[in-house]
């Protein structure tokens, strides 16, 4: 390797001196071939193997498929058999790979020395110390052992409890920063069933979301993305072509709000009141389902306080708006659904009741008969554990996942409590803030290296199996727990009947077979589950009704907001901070603000001018993230750079969760602010004061200007116009028959193309991260993004409509933009060395090894989708193990761009040829299309009119357009226009 590097360096230097040194440079490949001693029958070197498993990045529990080559997982994709993911996967799920191959993972067990530094120890020593301390604690009395960590699925959580019990303790807290406690509590209050309902957005005609960012971070975004796309697709409803009505109530426009017909900018904490006001209108207008068995008078009394006018005065949301969205909701004949994601408990109840009174309970919102065990502990339980720690009742604390030191509210005083614990053992992959508190750090398997199961909802049993050998010398958390129970807990420990976690999982699956009554031998059942990634059954809905006592409850009106509110929201990619050590997630622009590698204070221009920050925002809509404001919080002042944006309610300072790490690896450490550190328990907002400082700190974005200036980039049209057959006009008048100097080139075989439905796209950026993973795209870091050097081949283009446009079109113009693979590609004729040329299958090829880096092609590209390698890429070990062996890693000085995943096309074509058949439609799925939860991207053969891609164009005639048609580049990518409704836009 060093030999190769020095050769390359020499060549580079020699180029300055003379041309004689111009021997084509390349790094010699490995010079040794080491065969298997005994080959694995299932593995063909050079061909991928696929393993079904489950995603562990959030609680949605999507099924995923891991693509493994030569024993290392290189890509995660959605598992089509899984009803939740439906074969798609989100950005965070894709990035799980970077958690697996994180360069900052703990490689060896560590012990903290008295001076606070860490010393590597052997596993024997670490196990001995762990077991000794546990044995001592077990002997010292009951409750001297505690566990705080993330839930790892029902089976493993049961083991955790059994392990604690073996040491005579019940001090176990499964911690999740964004808990579903308010939703469960509200369900219990409204329906007497402490469970989370499932939603069927695709069966609704109207959706109102009370700050439930269901397309970004709330519950199960992949599933909702798919359902929402179907909800929003133009359909015949009541004899009229229409798209679903959708209103979003919340302080900031996120990707979910961006797709709405109406974004009701509400103060944090007032969503519940607005929901009640909507309920008030619905009830008073008599839009109650006729046979729902609801006592109308009781409901009327319940909502009497929430007269729209009054709530309007209270919250600053116009009464007409409330009445309008209430009418959408109440008058929906084909079902409506209200979702609540706000921290306000009232919002949850009101949303449930809205669904119930309009007869949508059991239709668009369904409670299932069986209630799977709750993954997370209730707050009281966690507080009890921490209190015990603080009181010195705990000798050994095990922290495994969840990063409580980072994400627990200050009132828990977790860090203080930990100081009173004799021995803190941290188990995990990348050492985070909680690991900083630990005395013993044990490297644990990443979820992709270990066994686990999931039960995201009744009827769905996901099986998580290891997809590769561990990257480091780590152990599974529960292997350690079981072993310690066996060794250190005496006979109580021996009661745990498993040798290790894998045992436990397979045991619980043999139980499961009995439970669901599946046929076949246990081995068949188990093998089948391993093949499909779990068992997916149709769960029966529960018959639930509104508990009549709920109408008696009285709730308080929200206070009229005075002064500024700081409101924190889960970052679309970093979520509660767990994504912060993944460079893909840091570098993918947050879809709405388009900011990378930072946390920021998003404020309205009005708020900005109140704070004395002048930004010429409306005129330019140029990015203005520079000024730093100081926000006073109960936990002391924090300083954040402001992002001035109309997409947030005036008076609100919106701050993303996820940054502000003081540990957690090179990508996470030392960026931004952690709002968990000052927010009260269970709340995401807090009244603050803010003042301008003289400091500046640049927020970095790859985005230039947010103003589309009427160019034909992301087009939209009203669904009414679609019905009428009127096409909107963007930019210049179209030329019917452009003059062609030359005859067109024929593409007799395949001609690959893409159809992208802008209406379905919600900006979730799963495609972006999928592309990073599939195509070995380098991450360049904040400074280089600032210079315009972001490398993503597909970007989620985001424009903000001007104030005058805002009344008419969509709230935000969002669409994925990748290489358009033009027939008349402007990039091709300008390349002096044919590095950019066209294939006989209509692809715009970029031959990296031919490229000399004139960069002429990008200059001539109207879409600006080509990327240049300004530096050699860096993949710090072991991130290099993730690299896709089918895709060249591009060195410095080379242009690159979207290839429609040529490696997948080639491989499918080779397979087809060797099997003596044609390539089938749907056989080739580029990474972006594969990942897209909303199925906005379809790939196929333009020459095959029956292909799904072409059918999609045919089915949506009147909605198709190509980007910037004035350049007559004849793109192979056809977009379908975004749709909006004319009504309610006045």
């Amino acid at each position, binding site marked *: 390797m060093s030999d190769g590097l020095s050769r390359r360096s020499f060549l*580079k*230097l*020699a*180029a*300055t001196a003379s*041309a004689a*040194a*111009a021997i*084509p*440079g390349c790094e010699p490949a490995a010079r040794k071939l080491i065969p298997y001693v005994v080959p694995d029958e299932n593995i063909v070197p050079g061909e991928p193997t696929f393993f079904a498993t489950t995603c562990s990045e959030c609680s949605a529990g999507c099924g995923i498929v891991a693509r493994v080559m030569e024993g290392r997982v290189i890509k995660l994709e959605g598992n089509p058999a899984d009803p939740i993911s439906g074969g798609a996967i989100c950005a965070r799920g894709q990035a799980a790979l970077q958690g697996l191959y994180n360069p900052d993972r703990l490689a060896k067990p560590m012990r903290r020395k008295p001076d606070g530094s860490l010393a590597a120890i052997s596993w024997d020593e670490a196990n001995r110390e762990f077991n000794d301390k546990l044995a001592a604690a077990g002997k010292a009395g009951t409750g001297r052992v505690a566990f705080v960590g993330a839930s790892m699925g029902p089976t493993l959580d049961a083991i955790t409890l059994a392990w604690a019990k073996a040491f005579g303790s019940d001090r176990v807290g499964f911690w999740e920063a964004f808990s579903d406690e308010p939703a469960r509590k509200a369900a219990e209050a409204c329906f007497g069933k402490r469970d989370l309902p499932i939603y069927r957005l695709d069966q609704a005609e109207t959706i109102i979301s009370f700050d439930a960012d269901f397309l970004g971070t709330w519950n199960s975004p992949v599933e909702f993305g798919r359902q929402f796309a179907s909800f929003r697709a133009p359909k015949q409803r009541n004899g009229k072509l229409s798209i679903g009505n959708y209103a979003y109530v919340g302080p900031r426009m996120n990707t979910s709000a961006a797709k709405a017909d109406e974004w009701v900018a509400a103060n944090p904490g007032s969503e519940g009141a607005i929901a009640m006001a909507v309920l008030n209108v619905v009830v008073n207008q008599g839009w109650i389902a006729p046979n729902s068995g609801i006592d109308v008078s009781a409901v009327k009394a319940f909502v009497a306080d929430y007269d729209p006018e009054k709530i309007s005065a209270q919250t600053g949301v116009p009464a007409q708006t409330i009445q309008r969205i209430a009418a959408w909701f109440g008058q929906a004949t084909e079902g409506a659904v209200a979702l609540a994601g706000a921290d306000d408990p009232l919002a949850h109840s009101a949303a449930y009741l809205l669904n119930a009174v309009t007869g949508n309970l059991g239709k668009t919102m369904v409670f299932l008969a069986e209630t799977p065990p709750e993954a997370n502990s209730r707050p009281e339980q966690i507080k009890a554990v921490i209190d015990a720690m603080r009181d010195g009742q705990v000798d050994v604390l095990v922290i495994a996942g969840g990063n409580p030191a980072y994400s627990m509210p200050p009132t828990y005083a977790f860090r203080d409590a930990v100081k009173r614990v004799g021995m803190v053992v941290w188990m995990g992959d990348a050492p985070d803030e909680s690991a900083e508190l630990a005395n013993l750090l044990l490297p644990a398997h990443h979820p992709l290296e270990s066994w686990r199961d999931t039960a995201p909802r009744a009827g769905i049993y996901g099986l998580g199996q290891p997809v590769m050998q561990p990257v480091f010398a780590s152990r599974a958390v529960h292997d350690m727990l079981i072993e310690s129970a066996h060794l250190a807990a005496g006979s109580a420990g021996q009661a745990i009947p498993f040798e290790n976690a894998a045992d436990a999982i397979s045991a619980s699956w043999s139980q499961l077979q009995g439970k669901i009554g599946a046929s076949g031998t246990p081995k068949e059942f188990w093998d089948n589950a391993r093949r499909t990634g779990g068992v997916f059954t149709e769960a029966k809905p529960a018959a639930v009704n509104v508990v009549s006592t709920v109408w008696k409850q009285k709730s308080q009106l929200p206070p009229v907001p005075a002064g500024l509110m700081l409101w924190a929201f889960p970052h679309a990619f970093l979520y509660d901070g767990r994504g912060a050590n993944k460079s893909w997630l840091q570098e993918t622009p947050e879809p709405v603000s388009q900011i990378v590698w930072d946390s920021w204070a998003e404020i309205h221009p009005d708020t900005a001018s109140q704070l004395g920050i002048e930004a010429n925002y409306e005129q330019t809509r140029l990015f203005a993230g520079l000024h730093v404001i100081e926000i006073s919080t109960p936990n002391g002042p924090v300083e954040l750079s402001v992002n001035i944006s109309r997409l947030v309610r005036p008076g609100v300072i919106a701050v993303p969760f996820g940054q502000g790490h003081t540990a957690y690896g090179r990508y996470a450490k030392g960026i931004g602010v952690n709002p968990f550190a000052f927010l009260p328990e269970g709340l995401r907002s807090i009244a603050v004061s803010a003042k301008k400082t003289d400091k500046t700190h640049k927020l970095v974005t*790859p*985005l*230039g*200007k*947010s*103003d589309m*200036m009427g*160019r034909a*980039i992301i087009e939209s049209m009203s669904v009414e116009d679609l019905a009428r057959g009127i096409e909107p006009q963007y*930019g*210049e008048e179209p030329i019917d028959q452009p003059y062609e100097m030359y005859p067109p080139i024929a593409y007799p075989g395949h001609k690959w193309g893409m159809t992208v439905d802008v209406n379905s796209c919600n900006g979730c950026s799963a495609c972006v991260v999928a592309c990073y993973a599939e195509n070995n795209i380098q991450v360049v870091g904040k400074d*280089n993004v600032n*210079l*315009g*050097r972001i490398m993503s081949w597909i970007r989620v*283009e*985001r*424009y903000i409509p001007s104030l005058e446009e805002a009344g008419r079109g969509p709230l935000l113009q969002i669409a994925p933009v990748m290489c358009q693979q033009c027939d008349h590609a*402007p990039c091709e*004729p*300008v*390349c*002096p*060395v*044919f590095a950019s040329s066209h294939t006989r299958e209509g692809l715009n090829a970029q031959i990296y090894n*031919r*490229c*000399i*880096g*004139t*960069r*002429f092609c*990008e*200059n*001539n590209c*109207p*879409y*600006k989708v080509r*990327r*240049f*390698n*300004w*530096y*050699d890429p860096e993949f710090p070990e072991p991130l290099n193990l993730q690299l896709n062996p089918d895709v060249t890693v591009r060195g*410095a*000085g*080379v*242009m690159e761009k979207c290839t429609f995943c040529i490696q997948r096309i080639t491989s499918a074509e080779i397979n087809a040829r060797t099997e003596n058949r044609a390539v089938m439609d749907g056989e080739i799925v580029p990474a972006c299309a594969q990942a897209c939860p909303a199925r906005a991207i379809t790939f196929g053969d333009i020459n095959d009119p029956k292909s799904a891609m072409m059918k999609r164009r045919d089915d949506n005639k009147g909605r198709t357009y190509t980007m*910037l048609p004035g*350049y007559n580049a004849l793109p192979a990518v056809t977009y379908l226009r975004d749709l909006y409704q004319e009504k309610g836009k006045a």
Partner: protein
Amino acid sequence: MAAAVGQGEFPINYIDVDRTAQRVMNPAGLKYWLWVAFLAFLVAVGVSYWTRQIYEGLGVTGYGQPNYWAVYITNFVFWVGIAHSGTLISAVLYLFRTRWRTAVYRCAETMTIFAVVTAGLFPIIHLGRPWYFYWLCPYPNERYLQPNFRSPLTWDFFAISTYLTTSALFLSMGLIPDIANQRDISTGWRKKFYTILACGWQGTDRQWRNFSMAYLLLAGFATPLVLSVHSVVSWDFATMQTPGMHSTIFAPYFVAGAIFSGCALVITLMVPMRKWLHIEDLVTVWHMDNLSKVVLFTSLVITYSYLTEAFVVWYSQDPIEMMTFYQRFFGSQGYLFGGMILCNCLVPLLLFSPRIRTNMIWLFVISIFVNIGMWLERFVLIAGSLATAQTPSQWRFYVPKITEVAITVGSFGWFLLNFSLFTKFLPIVSMTELKEGITWLRKSIREPYPYRKAA
């Protein structure tokens, strides 16, 4: 009888022409070598930054999306443009039998060569993988791959290399009689040096006869070539669809701009050279006056081109083009455009005054303005247009970093270093041509020259 040196008196005798021109090549003093050392230092700085850029990648520059072309290509166009006036003066005016060219053409042509050599470096500096630049050249190879002759960059490669060859041959041919003369009066290593370069020239009637025909034909080739080269350079941009560049008037507009900037640089070089090298007698105020008239004329052409360019955009009513022009005028880098108008359109208007045309200080200052203005013009055109192209989400204005600045400064050092060495070792004034036209020149310079005193 020798004329009084430094009085702008044109010499009467052939031998005086020789002596004045040959004095320049006398062994150099300390000042000259200090100057050379300074220039070599600039070159070294540029080369070291370039080395770093090659080693680490183009990331060390301020480049980024969408400014994939910026300072390097600006420098390329600037230096190619500079080159053009040399060919204009030596070839085009030769065909037109314009006598005043004889005194300045060698200087202009030397400038051409070194400007092309400098310009030719920039596309290579600009490349992402400069060690593969030879892929632009068609040569037989095992891959059966040849350059794409459809690409304007390939045209460029051919145009610039043809231009360099032609100019170099043109210059060397013109040098032969002068070098032969030099050979005859030198001693020591210089004699050997000049003997080789003179190729045995003796000025026989046969030699002169073929020489004049070949020279005439070379001039005949150079004339369309000079027009084609800058047209081809302009097509680098004009064939692009990028708003602000996609314009049919680019070819004539670039050629005019090239002559404008080139003549200005001739003035910039001539003013100190006349003084330091004591050739005021050969390059008189009258010559400088003529040069500045060319500058004035091309400045007016350039102004007209600017107006046409803007008018065409306005007339097309293309919103994307119009926005790019709006950004060019009033965007956040609009001051560059303002500076360019000031330097290229307004300041040269001073040359309408005969007093200014004959005042060397004024001429020098104005020519510097023009040089800056023409550099800005290319920068505004390239970096400015790319910064505000079709996709607004990718807009970004370019700000150079130290690497580009150092390499640009180094390129000036490189040019001046070559030029300075040339002046010391090869005749910078064409003696034969001056002698040939001496009668005519004496007559025209002797004519009442109302503002000669101003010199």
